[in-house]
């Protein structure tokens, strides 16, 4: 392993240490996610005014957009972790990549369903083959492909290697989803929140949206760490530290 990586990273990435670390972080991340979501949804559903064109239906934005951001963010993270796992064969990176996929798929699914529930009253249709919608659907299939490939091998590390390749190749879809509203002028509206330049959204609506974004990020951390802990137990089930945990939990 390269020697520019500090020692604590090596220590933390050893399975028993990371298992303990994740166990400490997880409840705090979930707690923070719940508090932020409560604040964000209070701001979005109660304090923010109704939209002048869409009335109260626009309030779906407070879950739809953060989930859509997460669907792309998690894919990017999964692809980076996959790359690290293929190049340096770090077990933890492999586990992070493979356990990110179901969470990403969940967020993508929520994005598609809430988008559909928003599209029906606004566009008059549940679904249309718009560029943004289609590319987001492809994203869901990529996630499902990664999950399926991972589980279709007898040897889980071999499955993870194959799935990591698919995750890396599929990254091409992420910019397509992001820029689809600029490249193809179809039904889905353009971005309202921009990193460069002023956002085209009232601040009454912007702060709940950003709060929800942080809430979903914290949730992802909590969910990922729970999944990683479970996966580490399965991966290391022959080792002493896992046997000790199994025995400890058998006692009432």
């Amino acid at each position, binding site marked *: 392993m390269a020697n520019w990586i500090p020692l604590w990273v090596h220590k933390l990435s050893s399975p028993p240490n990371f298992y303990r670390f994740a166990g400490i972080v997880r409840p705090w991340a979930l707690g923070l996610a719940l508090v932020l979501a409560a604040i964000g949804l209070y701001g979005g559903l109660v304090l923010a005014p109704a939209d002048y064109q869409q009335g109260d239906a626009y309030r779906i934005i407070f879950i739809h957009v953060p989930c859509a951001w997460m669907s792309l963010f998690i894919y990017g993270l999964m692809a980076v972790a996959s790359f690290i796992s293929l190049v340096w064969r770090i077990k933890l990176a492999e586990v992070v990549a493979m356990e990110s996929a179901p969470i990403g798929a969940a967020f993508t699914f929520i994005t598609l369903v809430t988008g559909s529930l928003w599209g029906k009253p606004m566009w008059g249709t549940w679904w249309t083959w718009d560029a943004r919608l289609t590319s987001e659907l492809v994203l869901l299939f990529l996630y499902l492909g990664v999950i399926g490939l991972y589980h279709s091998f007898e040897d889980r590390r071999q499955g993870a290697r194959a799935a990591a390749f698919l995750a890396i190749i599929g990254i091409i879809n992420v910019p397509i989803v992001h820029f689809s509203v600029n490249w193809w002028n179809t039904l889905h509206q353009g971005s309202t929140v921009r990193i460069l330049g002023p956002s085209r959204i009232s601040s009454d609506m912007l702060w709940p949206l950003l709060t929800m974004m942080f809430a979903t990020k914290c949730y992802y951390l909590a969910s990922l760490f729970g999944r990683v802990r479970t996966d580490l137990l399965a991966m290391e089930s022959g080792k002493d530290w896992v046997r000790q945990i199994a025995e400890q939990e*058998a006692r009432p």
Partner: protein
Amino acid sequence: MTPFSWDRFLAMGGYAAYVWPAFAVFFLVLLADYLSPGLRRKRQLRELRARMARQRARNPRQTTTP
């Protein structure tokens, strides 16, 4: 600003049939996502304990219990 009323809040300006199912999907999917690894973990540890018990039964001298 008009005072808060539950009726108006739940009605969502006539869009309740779209807004509330969207929020329900959000919370239910994430709840299922959060709970699923806990169930998997319980099953794994149960299987591991069974395996350990079988090993102990095969050669009683090699135990991992302190």
